[in-house]
């Protein structure tokens, strides 16, 4: 377990968690209809910071995104005492960071997330390697789960976890091209729901490795992630992955929980899927709420913003109503809150799902609990693949004569050949896919592992930068504004892990982490943390980097838990 010793939310409704909650209790929403702006030739409804609030959080020398994150971290740190030694880790959660500031042509070194994470770590004084979780919509809860395991497993004593995202034509045009936006205020779980609204926010929690004597503070009791392994954007119609994540979290707990705070994006597919997952997990009798009607979908911040808001609401003894919800429009039997409810319970479940087939669940409670001993798993590498323009090597042995720019397609044709979806993938996914195929192809002699017990984690420095640039070219000119939905989806680099999960029917956790460089020590920490999941038995893990057709590298292992 991990105790939350401080928190902060910066949202268009207020520059603290309590101001944000008070605004919600006073009936306010951050959502507002916006007229077209340069780069966005259509109206949209979103929750965006006013110029006045922006001036309050901006920090000299930092971008708008970084300033938002930094101010939120500083405010949380002001309320607690954290030693800045090698036992404290900083985890940033974001989907697209500074992307709105990028023109698609200039040097991207300072734009990408690991650069922001390094700047933020330096500004607050953290000396260990920052980890950036870039796992699409579930990033915030993935980051909480990672922090929980790094602390439970004894890797660190403190974790500072910040989730942040800001809005830009890049992101809004992308969701618009996916026909996922409601022009008016979103209506989670409602029969008339038409889609989501985007929002910007930052939230930080400071976690301390469990101190069972600390009373009155929230702790992460359990957290889990499962992949649908079905489609890169569509969730499982039966809610399979989400239900499995809920069941994994609730497995050893008979906690009397107050509510389920759902993702509730108000898209047709997400809300329907969550209703099935909740009712199939046997939790249909609990109140369910969604907070997107107040703050929109704040992407990489959402998991942390909504967790902290739910904590603060329960501190006041209330369960927030689901703004925008009137008449049930999902087939799973669930009880969505229309009015504010009162409760004396403190425990709650936060669930969230996202592109790449990811589903996460986290259980939080204030009650004291006995510390549970955690055995650090040992991992052994059973196979290794390295793939660069110079060639493809399995366990150091060259396995293909192909080299250079076209080698991924050539290897696909000669060694794989039965998966035409390969051609639809972006370069980074093709690289991850081909490297993993080689890893598994030469895995004949090994014990067969049940797909449901294998996890996937990829690490990268530049992530989806090549595809980001390609997507920007589809939105740059006002005369030729044709945002490509398929390119936009691949600007979420965790799709790489999703593609591998879909191909191989892997249902365990999938994760994407960005790092300043290929830091094996940091990667091994994350690997061990992932293997703390009770069901995980093996792991595809490693480095993938695709800058252009002559600069790419995959360096991945198949690990077994021993």
């Amino acid at each position, binding site marked *: 377990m991990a105790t939350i010793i401080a928190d902060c939310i910066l949202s268009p409704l207020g520059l603290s968690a309590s101001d944000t909650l008070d605004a919600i209790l006073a009936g306010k929403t951050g959502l507002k209809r916006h007229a077209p702006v340069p780069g966005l030739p259509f109206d949209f409804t979103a929750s965006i910071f006013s110029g006045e609030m922006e001036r309050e959080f901006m920090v000299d020398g930092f971008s708008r995104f970084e300033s938002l994150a930094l101010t939120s971290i500083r405010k949380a740190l002001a309320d607690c005492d954290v030693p800045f030694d090698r036992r404290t880790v900083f985890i940033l959660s974001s989907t697209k960071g500074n992307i709105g500031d990028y023109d698609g042509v200039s040097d991207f070194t300072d734009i990408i997330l690991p650069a922001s994470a390094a700047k933020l770590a330096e500004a607050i004084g953290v000396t260990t390697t920052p980890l950036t979780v870039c796992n699409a919509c579930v990033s915030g809860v993935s980051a909480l789960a990672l922090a929980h395991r790094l602390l439970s497993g004894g890797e660190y004593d403190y974790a500072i976890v910040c989730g942040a995202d800001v809005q830009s034509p890049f992101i809004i045009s992308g969701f618009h091209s*996916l026909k996922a936006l409601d022009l008016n205020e979103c209506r989670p779980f409602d029969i008339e729901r038409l889609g989501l609204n985007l929002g910007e926010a930052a939230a930080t929690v400071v976690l301390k490795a469990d101190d069972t004597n600390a009373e009155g503070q929230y702790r992460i009791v359990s957290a889990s992630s499962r992949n649908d392994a079905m489609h890169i954007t569509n969730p499982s119609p039966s809610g399979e992955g989400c239900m499995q994540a809920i069941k994994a979290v609730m497995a050893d707990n008979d906690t009397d929980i107050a509510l389920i705070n759902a993702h509730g994006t108000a898209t047709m597919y997400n809300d329907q899927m969550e209703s099935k997952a909740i009712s199939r997990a046997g939790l249909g009798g609990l109140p369910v709420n969604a907070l997107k009607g107040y703050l929109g979908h704040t992407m990489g911040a959402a998991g942390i913003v909504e967790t902290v808001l739910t904590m603060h609401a329960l501190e006041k003894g209330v369960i927030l109503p689901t703004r925008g919800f009137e008449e049930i429009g999902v087939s799973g039997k669930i009880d969505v809150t229309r009015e504010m409810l009162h409760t004396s319970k403190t425990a709650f479940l936060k669930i969230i799902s996202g592109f790449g087939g990811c589903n996460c669940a986290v259980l939080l409670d204030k009650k004291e609990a006995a510390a549970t001993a955690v055995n650090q798993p040992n991992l052994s590498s059973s196979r290794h693949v390295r793939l660069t323009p110079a060639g493809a090597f399995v366990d150091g042995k060259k396995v293909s004569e192909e080299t250079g720019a076209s080698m991924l397609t050539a290897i696909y044709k000669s060694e794989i050949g039965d998966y035409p979806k390969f*051609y639809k993938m972006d370069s980074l996914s093709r690289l991850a896919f081909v490297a993993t195929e080689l890893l598994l192809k030469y895995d004949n002699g090994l014990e067969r592992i049940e797909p449901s017990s294998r996890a996937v984690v990829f690490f990268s420095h530049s992530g989806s930068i090549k595809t980001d640039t390609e997507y920007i070219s589809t939105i740059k000119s006002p005369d030729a504004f*044709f945002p490509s939905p398929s390119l936009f989806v691949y600007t979420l680099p965790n799709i790489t892990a999703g593609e591998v999960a879909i191909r191989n029917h892997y249902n365990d956790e999938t994760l994407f982490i960005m790092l300043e460089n290929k830091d094996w020590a940091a990667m091994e920490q994350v690997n061990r943390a992932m293997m703390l999941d009770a069901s995980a038995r093996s792991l595809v893990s490693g480095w993938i980097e695709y800058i252009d057709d002559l600069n790419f590298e995959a360096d991945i292992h198949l690990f077994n838990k021993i």
Partner: protein
Amino acid sequence: MEMNDIIEELKASIIEALNLEEMTPADIDASAPLFGDDGLGLDSIDALEIIVLLEKNYGIRLANAGEGKKIFTSVENIARYVCENRTK
């Protein structure tokens, strides 16, 4: 432009836009279903990409994916819709 010319033009642009690398226009049966397990087996993102293609090449704006579903049953049907609704 004749229906048949539009059909051929559509086949080529669909192959390009959806990265159907291993296919040629001759492989696409203009009357076969585009989605689901029969025919081309396209998915929801492909449908959205076809919406972009129709806007870019023929100036046709479809408000939502649901509207597309009725038209995107086959290449032939898309061609008919293009004939009747194109603005460029």
